């Protein structure tokens, strides 16, 4: 993660990036939600969603930090529905965001 951040917006993103560190259990939970719901748009880039694993697409989002990414996940943005169209709780949503971030590094 640090590698890509340092390439894009080191000074801006260092603090939020550090707060995104996540353990294996969280990533597993996040992956599960990703694979049931988020995958609908984020695997194909449907409706301009940043694709899973596309570092270029994710770098500016990661640079904005976890709070901003969670803001989008919770309230939706553009074609992205609030909570990604799920009834998942905040912690699970956050885990899914962390999983997607982990795949963009």
């Amino acid at each position, binding site marked *: 993660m640090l590698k890509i951040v340092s390439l894009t917006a080191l000074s801006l993103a260092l603090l939020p990036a550090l707060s995104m560190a996540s353990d294996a259990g969280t990533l597993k939970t996040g992956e599960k939600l990703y*694979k049931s*719901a988020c*995958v*609908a748009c984020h695997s*194909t880039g449907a409706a301009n969603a940043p694709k899973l694993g596309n570092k270029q697409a994710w770098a500016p989002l990661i640079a904005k930090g976890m709070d901003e990414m969670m803001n989008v996940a919770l309230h939706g943005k553009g074609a992205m*529905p609030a909570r990604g169209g799920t009834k998942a709780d905040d912690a699970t949503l956050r885990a899914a965001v962390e999983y997607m971030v982990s795949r963009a590094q």
Partner: protein
Amino acid sequence: MKVFRLCMAATALASLLAGGVALADPADKLEHIKPVLVAPPHVMEHEQATKAKPRVVEFTMTIEEKKIVIDEENGTTMQAMTFNGSMPGPTMVVHEGDYVQLTLINPATNALEHNIDFHASTGALGGGALTKIKPGEQTVLRFKADRTGTFIYHCAPEGMVPWHVVSGMSGTLMVLPRDGLKDQDGKPLHYDKVYTIGEFDLYIPKDENGNYKEYDTALESYGDTTEVMRGLIPSHIVFNGKKGALTGAGALTAKVGETVLFIHSSANRDTRPHLIGGHGDYVWATGKFINKPERNLETWFIPGGTAGVMMYTFKQPGIYAYVNHNLIEAFELGAAGHVKVEGKWNDDLMKQVVAPSAIKN
């Protein structure tokens, strides 16, 4: 890669059209009418042969995402997506040379972006590239219905087309010749009533114990559902949204002597309709009226992505079954309905000479 290229083309096209100058449009000068759409299996009131000049026929459809019961006996549910709340969406009827003008509404209560692709239309991925609407938006599309026949319309959002289609988003547009339907010799054909049947192959996931899963939202069902879709084996195949929708109180009705037009759409998967105890008197299995109808068919074949038409004049009373004649798909998976026909029995056509009884030596 292919999908990506398609997206790029659609985007370029959409911006080209949006930037176009508003020239005087011939369609603007035509008469506009607003017929009322009705829920399937019924079809909006319409003329067959018409003396009217070409006009702009305005429709409005509202997209509704909702959980529905697809098998009442077992309580199996699906996170459905629909045009106007029904599966299939309502059947629209216009005449050759008319313009279809659709207002498509995606209420803020929905979660997903949708659009519409009319197989009857020409250009912009069937209108799909010009009708992308997020929840809380609406759009208006106009196209010229310059080919006769029954045509599928369906939702087709980039990246998740099949899921929206198998979740319920399809229906039929029927474009009638201005002088009505004709037989193989060009003689006029007239129907007394018309029914529309939408066949849906459904892919409901099961849990570890083999029970069908239930989901809180459509998106939560996505991952498991696409997994089942990739197996290409539907869990259910239903007419009009659920097992038994066209049986019992929902059965179609007719009278002896009455001519019925059966419109049958299947947006994703092949089917082979058959009327048990009857026939297809005149059949446009691929649905296009410029072609001569086939006659006396026992079973006809509708390729996935097509709406076909069958016309039949009932000669005997009783309960008929209208089925997909892969009988497993009909009687195990759900692709069967009934037609309840009143009238007088004809002994000449069929007679029970000896009722079932013990074998005589």
